[in-house]
């Protein structure tokens, strides 16, 4: 595994996008990509284009919705927002993720001893 650019599992990226939209409200694709990069403090540097695959997947499941709006600098852009179903999914998946990562941590600590 490389050090700087981590490969991101599909599901992980979906979860990040959901979390971002939940925290920030409606955003356009570029905004979401920037936000994820900022939060990860540039540990994760993604090809920004890949988030569109994630956005499409989430839309097809109706976990997020999309609509055209105007961006800060007065351009028309497509804005994505989390839906009610999306929030439920986010809650469920976040919980899942926490459980797994807790287990992971314990495993790794035990292994170090």
């Amino acid at each position: 595994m490389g050090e700087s650019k981590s490969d991101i599992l599909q599901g992980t990226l979906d979860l990040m996008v959901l979390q971002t939209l939940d925290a920030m409200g409606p955003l356009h694709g570029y905004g979401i990509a920037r936000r994820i990069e900022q939060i990860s403090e540039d540990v994760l540097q993604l090809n920004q284009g890949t988030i569109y695959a994630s956005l499409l997947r989430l839309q097809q499941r109706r976990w997020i919705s999309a609509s055209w709006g105007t961006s800060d600098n007065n351009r028309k852009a497509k804005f994505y927002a989390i839906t009610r179903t999306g929030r439920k999914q986010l809650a469920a998946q976040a919980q899942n993720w926490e459980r797994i990562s807790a287990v992971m941590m314990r495993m790794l600590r035990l292994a170090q001893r």
Partner: protein
Amino acid sequence: MPNADAMPAWLAILVSRVRGLVTSGRQDREFSREVADHLDMLTDDYIRRGVPPGDARRQAILRFGGPVQIQEQQHESRGLPFIETTLQDVRYGLRTLRKSPAYSLVAIATLAIGIGAGTAVFSVVGAVLLRPLPFTAPDELVRIFETNPLRRWTRNIAAPANYADWRTQNKSFTDIAAYEQFNSTGSGASDVFLTGFGEPQGVKSLGVSGNLFQVLGAAPLLGRTFVEEEQWEGRSRVAILSYGLWQSAFGGDPAIVGRTITLSGRGYDVVGVMPPTFFFPGRDVQLWLPFGYTPQRVQTSRRPHWLGVIARLRPGVSFEQAREDMNGIARQLEQQYPDTNTKMGVLLEPLHDSYASGARTALLMLSGAVGLLFLIVCANLANLQLGRGVSRTRELAIRRALGAGRARVLRQLLTESLVLSAVGGALGFGLAALARIALTRYAASAIPLFAVVQTDRAVLFFALALSLAAPVIFGIVPALSNSRSEQVTERSGSSTRETRWLRNLLVTCEVALSIVLVVGAVLLLRSLGRLQDVDPGFAKEHAVTFTMTLPTARYPDSAARFRAFTEIERRLREQPGVQAVGSTSTLALRGFTWSGDTTIEGRAAADYERDTRHMSMTPGYFNAMRVRLLAGRLFDTGDTREKPPVTIVNESLAKRYFRGLSSADVVGKRISFGRPQDNSGWITIVGVVADEKQDGLDRSAEPTAYSSIGQALQNPQTFVVRTTDAPDMAFGKARAQVAAVDKDLALTQTATLEEVVETSMADARFRTTLLAVFAGIALLLAALGIYGVLAYFVSQRSRELGIRLALGAKPAALFRMVVGQGMRPVAVGAAIGLAGAVGVTTLMQSLLFGVTPVDPAAYGVATAALAAIAAAACAVPALRATRVDALTALRDE
């Protein structure tokens, strides 16, 4: 979306993808704008951070990661790529078809014929053999016949007393019903006259038992059906109308139930009207009446036999069990009534089988034939496609070079086949609908009376199934072969040789299959020819016939009927243009009405003849029909009740009952109608006439005794008028003369004698015509296949042929070589086909007349026809081969 929560994720995805498929173009445009915006923002970001604008753009694209690929991916996961590709292939397929109109036209026409013929035959087969009868649980219904080896009865109608005993003694049926069958042909219905509603109208009516409708499980549209007691004399003046009669004679008046109508001079209360789908036993029956016997008559009449019997199996009782049960009853009756029931057995037959029995073999034969035709169509198309594949090698090779997998190319080729087949199938369905109209108009009498041939949903599905099956059959082999072409440079390598081998194989198959059809068709054509050559025993030209039933109410006794018939005959004879007139109880080729035992004077008491047919006629009949008198005299007006009884017999009777005597010697012998112990009184044979065909041109006449209506009158009588008038004019005159005798009488069964003969051959003509058409098409398709392969062979080797010619080869030798090349698969196919035909044609033995299934002439004619058409197909490309110009051929390289 309000229900978004409730929708499972997979369904949401599917809905979204289907929508994506439809709005694909708009979404692509939107997404590319979104990507452009994203890149702009990213670029601006870099510029803000101080990167020079040109470099900023480049870095933005790098950071984004291949905008084109991402758009492509997005497109694919948005819609349904499988369907999208298919649509693309369909569009491409249509375009390719437009580009080569000759190929497309031939292919589509071929398919339309194959699918159309298949569908047309299916619509008849479905109507006759497959569609359930319009009765409740029709599978439970069986017909019961009497059998008797002594009388050569295999499926005879029953005697009333036997029916009555079956009904009370059986343990297998919920009930058994019966109906009158007074004639060996048709549905057994008789004519009654409906008066009081406009013109007197002849109506086909059927006498039935009171429980018939319950046994059939048939509910009326209006009113009720009969109740049991109404079948007895005294209660039986009730009637049930068919939907057709209700509409035509009573204008669909719903108040008809409860009204009284006059039938042949007697009043009947209408108690019910049946729905339009109902019929029994044939669609010609317009009216049902209880048979109105006395209980005593039903319980004691063990001969003659005149009832059709139909029963419904008890739930849980198998056909086999019912047969056992009935056989037991028949054996018991045999012991109980040796006088009438010796050797009298029963035959049970599922009702549907009984209905379809006459048509089954022919229809199965036609189904098989049309199946072969369909295979030939497929082989031919496969052949065409292989030929085209070769000319498309370049295109397909380029596709593969550009990265299309073999599966992808295969799929494209199969989709093209499907497009062809869809167009051909739609046309074929149209053809089948037209064929149905033609069939019902021109071949109505060849289709059993009960069946209605229609283009319904089942027929549509069948056409659809054929259209889907065809491309799989004809498309798979060429597609596999064609999708293999890998190298652009490939010209005449191994795959072409394989293709040629395949195409020769297909031609062999086509030839083999079509020669089977041709042999079958020739056999049927020869049978039909033999049938047409049969002497029916009378002269069919310039004569019309009609049937006349005298209502019992107004003509209560023989004397009154005799006067009426004689008067009608006299008036008709006096018309200008009329050469001869006569009437008979059963016209030639219309079966028989009744038969009975005959005692021959001078024989031992136990030695009597069974099943002599009886007909009664006016003195003019034999002359009107031009039946030859072999010995003795014809009837004359003097043969009346007051004179000693006389009879004229046909040649079959004379030969069979008086073995070794000449016709002249038979004249003067005495016989009596009945068994020796009946003491019926001697009747003198005064004449012997030539046989008239009775049950069909292909069946020999049965022994028949004729009586004069002056001594033994039967009603109805069928008149024969030999006249120089045109038929319409003749019928007009006849109507006027009949009306002059009694204005309430009507003519029924009007036909010319030629039509009577024609109707008796209708089913033979029907199957022969269809099979001949199929065989013709098959031959044509085979020729097309042969031509295609050979034309390709010549064009492939034009260079070699050109050089040979330039080097001095004789054109005639080249011609022979090419023809030889073409005829090789033909010869192999013909050999296989002829061998196969021997096996197949023995199955159609019962459809043949006057020829054996292995008739050498038929095989010879079929082979000659095939050889001629194949040679013609070879000659064209072979001629071209002899005209190849070496220089042009070389320049083409």
